[in-house]
């Protein structure tokens, strides 16, 4: 359900002056939202069933165990509330998908391309178990890590191991009809998670993510290779669904994904340029480009609602983060969302990100045949190239946004973190003379560990002193 303009929304429930607000404040604010407005938002459009409502305040999800929500700060717009309700509701949505006869397909490891193909099939719902890596933090719980440990994954490993715990628990999402697992030029941790998850999967189809040698340019033989990999995916999905995918359906699937990608690209410009949305919401929005939170139709409406809000704020000269905040490019997504809030609380703001999902942020070329276009888009992925190439993405954003520092949040034992963090940091220091803070995100907890807080504080102090 797209919201074409902010006027209607403003009349029914005018957004307050932009601010980052806490859990309790959202509870109070939610009381003022009219029931008719709450009743308007349903997932799986055009479905209007009562069970598909999702506009709930953070409290609802905290009751179900998302304790971290009590500590985060949220944007106070209706669009942001809608986004949080939709995102937090994903588990329910996946089980509903199964109940209503949809095919649930897990896409693992490629971060962006596979769901475009899966969603092109009628009645297929793609989701990323990868994104379960936030769940232990949001729930302040070790349960999924413990479950992964029982499967054999040691502690000093990427938090993405939570996905294996979720597979083993059979409770966080319905057992997928098919698991498509990308491996190859990707991280070891997740490739290992995939291999062990295969024991819990009905069927797993392996897809190769090829290595990218050149910087920027598209390598025709590699694209051709990737198209062949995607053809295997299409064939397998055709067997699963009994439906032969037409080029037109794939083209429409690409167009749908592009609609989201284009909206998110504009949101990035507005948020990282004009400071109209907080970093936390932006991270959630960026990751929506991977799998659209299992419902591309409604997620499109959510993102476009956010875009309307962001534009209205920009037009009115309203900001949600201070104009004089210290400008930071954030590299590698923090598993603990509280870190983004903390940065803003302490006077920083995110003006660029390199969350290893850059391939999902750029539009797919709609003039090319579908699979080729998706393959070309994927070939931009920062994860499949060199660290030098990834550093270029960081340098470009830091230059464009006049960043004052670069923050690299890593994961102890994460294969690419261990190998590339220093290479990226060295290049940023050498080429832009910018300070770099590199730290590993600590395990889930109620608050950010003292050492990390001190390091972020000291980093921001250093940046301030350089002004």
């Amino acid at each position: 359900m797209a919201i074409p303009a902010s006027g209607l929304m403003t009349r029914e429930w005018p957004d307050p002056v932009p601010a980052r607000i806490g859990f309790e404040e959202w509870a109070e604010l939610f009381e003022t939202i009219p029931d008719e407005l709450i009743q308007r938002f349903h997932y799986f459009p055009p479905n209007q069933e009562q069970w598909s409502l999702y506009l709930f305040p953070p409290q609802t999800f905290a009751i179900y165990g998302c304790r971290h929500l009590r500590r985060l700060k949220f944007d106070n717009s209706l669009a942001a509330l809608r986004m949080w309700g939709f995102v937090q509701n994903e588990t329910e949505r996946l089980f509903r998908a199964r109940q209503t006869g949809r095919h649930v397909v897990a896409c693992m490891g490629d971060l962006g391309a596979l769901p475009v193909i899966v969603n092109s099939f009628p009645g297929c719902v793609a989701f990323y178990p990868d994104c379960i890596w936030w769940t232990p933090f949001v729930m302040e719980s070790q349960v999924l890590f413990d479950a992964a440990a029982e499967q054999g994954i040691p502690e000093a490993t990427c938090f993405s191991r939570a996905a294996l715990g979720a597979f083993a628990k059979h409770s966080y999402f319905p057992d997928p009809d098919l698991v498509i697992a990308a491996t190859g030029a990707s991280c070891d941790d997740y490739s290992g998670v995939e291999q062990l998850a295969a024991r819990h999967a009905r069927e797993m189809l392996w897809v190769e993510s090829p290595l990218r040698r050149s910087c920027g340019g598209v390598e025709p033989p590699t694209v051709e290779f990737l198209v062949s990999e995607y053809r295997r995916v299409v064939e397998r999905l055709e067997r699963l669904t009994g439906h032969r995918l037409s080029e037109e359906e794939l083209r429409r699937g690409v167009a749908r994904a592009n609609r989201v990608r284009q909206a998110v690209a504009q949101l990035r410009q507005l948020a990282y340029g004009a400071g109209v949305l907080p970093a936390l919401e932006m991270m959630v929005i960026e990751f929506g480009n991977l799998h659209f939170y299992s419902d591309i139709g409604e997620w499109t409406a959510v993102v476009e609602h956010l875009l309307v809000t962001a534009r209205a704020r920009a037009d009115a000269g309203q900001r949600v983060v201070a104009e004089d905040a210290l400008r930071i490019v954030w590299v590698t997504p923090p598993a603990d969302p509280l870190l983004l809030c903390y940065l803003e609380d302490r006077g920083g703001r995110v003006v660029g990100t390199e969350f290893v999902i850059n391939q999902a942020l750029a539009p797919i070329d709609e003039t090319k045949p579908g699979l080729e276009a998706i393959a070309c888009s994927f070939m931009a992925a920062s994860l499949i190239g060199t660290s030098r190439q990834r550093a270029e993405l960081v340098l470009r954003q830091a230059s464009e946004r006049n960043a004052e520092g670069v923050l690299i949040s890593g994961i102890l034992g994460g294969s690419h973190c261990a190998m590339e963090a220093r290479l990226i940091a060295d290049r940023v220091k050498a080429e832009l003379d910018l300070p770099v803070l590199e730290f590993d995100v600590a395990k889930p907890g109620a608050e950010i560990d003292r050492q990390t807080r001190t390091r972020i504080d000291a980093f921001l102090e250093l940046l301030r002193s350089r002004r």
Partner: protein
Amino acid sequence: MALISGADREQLRKERLQELTRLKAEGTRVVGYFCLYAPVELIAAAGAVPVRLVRSSADAETAGERFLRADACSFCKSCLGGFEREPLFRLADGVVGVTTCDMMRRLPEAFEAHRTVPAFQLNLPRTSESAPHRLAEFRRQMAMLGDWLASLTGRHADEDGLQQALQRQNRLRQIVRRVDELRATLPAAVSGSDVLDVVALAGLLDPAAAVAVIERGLVRAGQSQSTAERPRVMLGGSIITEDDRWLVEMVEEKADIVADIVCTGARWAAEDAPVGEPGLDLLAGFYFSRLPCMCRRPNDRLYEHARQLVVARRVAGVVYKTLLYCDPWSFEARRLHDELGVPVLAIDSDYSGQNREQVRTRVEAFLETLAE
């Protein structure tokens, strides 16, 4: 008595270093590689001398930590540090990396950044299921490696050169397999560490020279190594270098290592490359389809191989040594235990040696349990 004594191995290493130094002075290029997926036949056919760089030490690891984080794999750090400490590493005019695991994929970039050694990444698909486009892509990667080698040596590998190299390597693989089979006899004619030794020599010496050395050793090793029935153990896990010999010796004090699934052991020689034309096509097919490393996906064929070894060689337990932060192998320890049906001792360690006595206690306790 060892198939090739420690003193002989040291002497062979010393002589090889001298030989490589001389060859370099005469204009021959030395190309280092790390992994059994590196096509040594192609390197040799391009006129370079392939040498496997598998030394590891705590000092080299520490040296590598100047450039990589502490939570990078110990072998990767040690390789990077090795370029300032190991004479063999310093002889390398270029390095061939293979994109097996993520850290090895990224290692050549670190070489270029910090060591100014030209490096080529051979992109081996991690997916192990054969498909025509995957084989074609790997064939293309091999051709690119051929071009890179030619830029180093001034010579492209031709068909004759490839065929000769294939035959020489196959001969070497065959004799290493013979050594491997001998350790499984009862009583064993050679030891598990003999297999690791001959594979190490195979990566260091010229193939013909290595064959000659192993043949001489086999003549001497006609006698049984072990007279008493001892626990029969399989070795598994991350790369075991010559510097990990302490662990092998520790195990062999109380048990016989009758099989292994490590890349520096019998897996290196598990199969012959097909001989015929066109050599590059056959070579690509051979390396793509090798008995898979644990990092390939799916890795079920390695499990099947391990199960066969357990049955055929009456393996009573597995000593499974992984390197810290080696995800492909360490993640699989539990599954291996579940699927092989024999006890598995999982040891996770770096090269520091600080936990060696603790490891000893665990190994001895494990082997005593097997002996009961």
